[in-house]
């Protein structure tokens, strides 16, 4: 108890220095937490992928399409339970800066394959019945103030023209990690419009979604599907949804690695700052440590004082950083929702933040502790006066 009292009083002996160090640690831990959250989110699509869903696309590239006629042949492959299909629509709402993911999908099979998109039964029925009907995620609808029944017009970028939809349903995510900023509508509406306007682009799909009953069937089914279309004009590449998502992530992996490195560099920098503070502190107190040793206190007592002070400062800073992470993440989610529809700080990120703060405290205390614990009494006493 006595030592704890002394540690706390020592920690706040130079209030300004301690406060600045605490603020520095807090900002570093906050930055670390936000960067780690960002990296985690990048892989969220991968992590939340279903092990029983496969994606079949054109083997050349995702920008090349596949004929709709493949649907029947794919659905006959053993092990396949459901087949859906869709196109990336790429429409913009009023202004190009209003970006959100939008797809033309086969609605019934799509919703069966994606039970994480939860629609109320009556809204779902209304959506399935209306060919111009569309569904928007809860966050997307809230952002633009859409209500069920509203007419929404998207400007096509891949499929030129003005595209009018009636919002028939607003879905919510079954899990916290489900993206609630998506917009999807009937593939038939797209296809029939294309038949009239650009017939050569009709009856083409961007990808097929395949549902299998068991994850262990995924590899066999993928091989079987791709074998069906070998040597055709549009050969396929079938992979698990996770591998499909990883393909997107890998395009930006260098950026993610850079962000990860920056998150560690931030911690190393604050470690150096905290170590400098603790070194200054210990140097100023060498005389006091020598006095305590004179009175019979040992190196371990001095080590407890220096370590305790460093860890307390880092823990306070770390705690503040962790607490600030939540409002900061909320602000990012609100202000930058088009880029970060989900920006939730995970429990593992909070643990990492606290661990980082603890490491900062321990590492910062190493040299000062060694210095304080090993200084000769006569040497230390000479520093007084």
């Amino acid at each position: 108890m006595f030592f704890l009292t002394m540690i706390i009083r020592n920690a706040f002996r130079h209030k300004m220095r301690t406060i600045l160090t605490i603020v520095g640690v807090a900002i570093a831990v906050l930055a670390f937490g936000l960067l780690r959250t960002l990296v985690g989110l990048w892989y969220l699509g991968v992590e939340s992928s279903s092990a029983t869903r496969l994606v079949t696309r054109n083997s050349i590239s995702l920008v090349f399409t596949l004929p709709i006629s493949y649907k029947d042949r794919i659905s006959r492959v053993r092990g396949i339970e459901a087949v859906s299909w869709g196109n990336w629509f790429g429409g913009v709402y009023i202004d190009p800066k209003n970006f959100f993911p939008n797809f033309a999908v086969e609605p019934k099979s799509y919703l069966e394959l994606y039970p994480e998109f939860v629609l109320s039964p009556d809204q779902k029925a209304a959506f399935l019945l209306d060919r111009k009907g569309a569904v928007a995620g809860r966050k997307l609808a809230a952002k633009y103030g859409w209500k069920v029944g509203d007419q929404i017009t998207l400007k096509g970028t891949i499929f030129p023209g003005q595209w009018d939809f009636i919002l028939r349903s607003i879905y919510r995510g079954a899990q916290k990690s489900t993206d609630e900023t998506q917009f999807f509508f009937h593939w038939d509406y797209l296809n029939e419009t294309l038949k009239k306007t650009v017939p050569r682009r009709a009856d083409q799909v961007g990808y097929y979604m395949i549902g299998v009953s068991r994850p262990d069937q995924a590899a066999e089914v993928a091989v079987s599907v791709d074998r069906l279309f070998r040597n055709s004009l549009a050969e396929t590449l079938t992979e698990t949804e996770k591998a499909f998502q990883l393909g997107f992530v890998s395009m930006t992996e260098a950026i993610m690695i850079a962000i990860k490195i920056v998150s560690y560099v931030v911690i190393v920098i604050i470690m150096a700052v905290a170590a400098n503070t603790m070194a200054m502190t210990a140097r100023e107190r060498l005389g006091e440590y020598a006095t305590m040793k004179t009175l019979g206190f040992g190196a371990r007592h001095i080590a407890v004082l220096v370590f305790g002070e460093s860890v307390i400062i880092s823990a306070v800073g770390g705690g503040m950083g962790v607490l600030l992470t939540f409002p900061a993440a909320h602000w990012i989610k609100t202000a930058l929702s088009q880029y970060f529809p989900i920006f939730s700080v995970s429990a593992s990120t909070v643990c990492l933040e606290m661990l980082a703060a603890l490491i900062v405290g321990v590492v910062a205390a190493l040299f000062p502790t060694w210095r304080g614990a090993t200084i000769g009494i006569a040497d230390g006493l000479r520093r007084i006066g």
Partner: protein
Amino acid sequence: MESITVKPPIVQIRNLSKSYRRGSQDIPVLMDINFDIGEGDFIALMGPSGSGKSTLLNLLAGIDKADSGQIMIGGVDITSLSETELAGWRSANIGFIFQFYNLIPVLTAFENVELPLLLTRLSRKERREHVETALRLVNLADRMDHYPSQLSGGQQQRVAIARAIITDPVILVADEPTGDLDKVSAIEILNFIDRLNHEFGKTVIMVTHDPRAAEKARLIRHLDKGVLSSG
């Protein structure tokens, strides 16, 4: 070897030498020191700066190591003790009074005096009783909750004296105890130290430049260039 007292010696110093290394050079500070201090003596060590008196005091108090020679205190050869053993021995046998008081600024007068008792098995209540007694002895019972920065130099030195005697050590070592004090406070502190010697029988070894301080001592020894001479 010479005997400087008729009382049984509590301190026996034999062939004590100490040098410091500066670069590649050994600078001798103490050379072949021999003398005894009797129990209850009050001895003043005087000499010019750099004569080795503080070094001798440090060696006697077990806070520095000699190059050669022997220091027997109360029958214990402290030159043969390890650092850990020395720490325990110091806390039980030596009380320190420093020139600059060496109080811990973040602790109150009470807590500063209590500090050495934290290494004992005394209960909190017993520690409180001891500390209050010691602070009453130095007339600071009403200032026990004050921090060092709230006390005058003389008051701080009195707290330091209370801290020095709290474990009831046999020997008090004082390094220039009046060196940082005004005349009035210096006299007050010397009177306290004198009282501890006379009334409580503490053996006092004091390093000083101040002839008035030395007058309080029963014996004065001079050090010059590391060599001891009688006063």
